[in-house]
């Protein structure tokens, strides 16, 4: 019980930092603005296409689905934005504590390193979840106005996918932040690592060897494809959860080892 209380105290503290500095506002503003404009252009595109389809193929045209033409592409685009936003959320998590000397406060309080790492990760993940929820409000517009309502289940799975996808970056970024006292360095290194994980996908051309195809499976983007389309496959969720666990494990080991090297 106290363990949960400790983690919660840390989450609250991190949120105070996020909202006590411009970071949270900048990130939220950028995120929601981009979400909104992607949504707007997707809807605009959808309307034009469906009108054209209506004119060209009278009667027999298959109905275009909002899920397929609006929701899924928008969330897919937001994954790119997450690539840029995640370093901003994670860079300060440990780097700032180290720079300010406040690691000593956490290190001498009756907290375990697991609690510290989890608290910080959950704070960043929580803010990220709030960002996704704020973006999802846009889709409310579809439910309100569209003649045929979109299905909500694919939206749920796509959002979950986007969330887990971002959490991988956040977990890895948390680890990178433990390595330095400089936030800028933490941000740049995290971003480069994220980008690398993104492009691992390219290794999978049809002629590639089994090794490279295995490597491409590690690409975080690869597991997003199906989820964004609304297909919730166990293997993707397991991949994300193990990736997150691995990132947090690295962060924990790093914090633990610094105690010994200090």
């Amino acid at each position: 019980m106290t363990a949960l209380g400790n983690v919660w105290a840390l989450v609250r503290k991190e949120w105070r930092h996020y909202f006590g500095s411009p970071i949270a506002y900048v990130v939220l503003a950028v995120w929601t603005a981009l979400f909104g404009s992607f949504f707007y252009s997707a809807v605009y595109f959808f309307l034009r296409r469906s009108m054209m389809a209506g004119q060209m193929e009278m009667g027999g045209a298959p109905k275009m689905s909002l899920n397929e033409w609006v929701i899924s592409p928008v969330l897919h685009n937001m994954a790119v934005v997450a690539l840029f936003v995640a370093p901003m959320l994670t860079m300060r998590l440990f780097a700032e504590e180290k720079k300010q000397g406040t690691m000593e406060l956490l290190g001498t309080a009756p907290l375990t390193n697991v609690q510290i790492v989890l608290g910080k990760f959950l704070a960043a993940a929580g803010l990220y979840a709030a960002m996704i929820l704020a973006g999802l409000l846009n889709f409310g517009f579809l439910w309100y106005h569209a003649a045929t309502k979109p299905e909500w289940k694919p939206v749920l799975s796509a959002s979950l996918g986007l969330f887990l996808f971002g959490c991988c970056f956040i977990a890895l970024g948390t680890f990178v932040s433990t390595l330095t006292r400089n936030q800028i360095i933490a941000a740049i290194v995290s971003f480069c690592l994220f980008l690398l994980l993104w492009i691992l996908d390219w290794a999978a051309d049809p002629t590639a060897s089994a090794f490279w195809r295995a490597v491409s499976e590690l690409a975080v983007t690869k597991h997003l494809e199906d989820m964004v389309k609304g297909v919730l496959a166990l293997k993707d969720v397991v991949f994300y959860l193990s990736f997150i666990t691995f990132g947090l494990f690295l962060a924990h080991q790093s914090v633990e080892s610094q105690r010994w090297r200090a």
Partner: protein
Amino acid sequence: MIEVENLTKRYGRHTAVDGVSFKVMKGEVLGFLGPNGAGKTTTMRILTCYLPPTDGRAKVAGYDVFEEPLEVKKRVGYIPETPPLYPDMRVDDFLDFCARIKGVAKAARAQRLADAVEKTRIGDVRRKLIGTLSKGYRQRVGLAQAILGNPDVLILDEPTAGLDPKQIIETRELIRSLGGEHTIILSTHILPEVSMVCGRVVIINKGRVVAEDTPENLTHRLRGAATLRVELRGDGAAAAEALGAVPGVAAVRAHGGGSGTATFEVDPEPGTDVRPELARAVVSRGYDLLALQQVGMSLEDIFLHLTTTETPAETPAAAPAAAGEVVA
């Protein structure tokens, strides 16, 4: 309450703390004295479980710092040299956070917070951002943080560094008032502070304990052997003889004089205080006693003496033999 046994910390080849042992009883205020880089901070970090020791053991409140760090941390309040504060948080929020991570129960939290704020007199800045506070207030917020969990043991690393004189006096009074209820280890290199606040002193140099005693005893033992300066009006040669005849006086040296006055340096035998006899001898022989003064051996001198000698004195009792050299 605190038992430190043969504690050693090495950083690569550098040995920061080298076989340090001492004990602190419940309710005691222990001064931890040493020049910069002597290993004070490292020892304190080990006691607060921030750093693991390379060798030796340390127990706080009956728990080993290595085996059961969480139990130790629950019972220790600590302020590092620069108090660890979040400049972007308000004092209240910061203390609330500290109370939470120290496991202060929800029901007791508000009361504890109010107590700590009152004791450290930071009531008027509770709603301010920590980043806007002066050094003195920050130090006190740090202290409030340390006493929040109502810990059995307080470990304070130079709590008066960077404060103005008024704040120093207030902080010392606060620390003294916390003693008894809490067991306190306090590091400093301001010596008067030790004699004012601490019941016992451990002097540490180059990672080793060079002396351990009460401030009075330390001063007293060495003072017994400290040279006295006697200035009187009258015939110099006869007076020297009279002074030499006083029991407990080991040597008398003439130290110049003016018109009709003479000055002597008198070395007493170690462990004796010959001042009353000296005064009586001078006056009873009809000389005017102009001055009777101890030369040196304030805590400052002892500190300098103990930390600058090549081979550290094993016990304070061994120190007086060499004490005269420092004074002369």
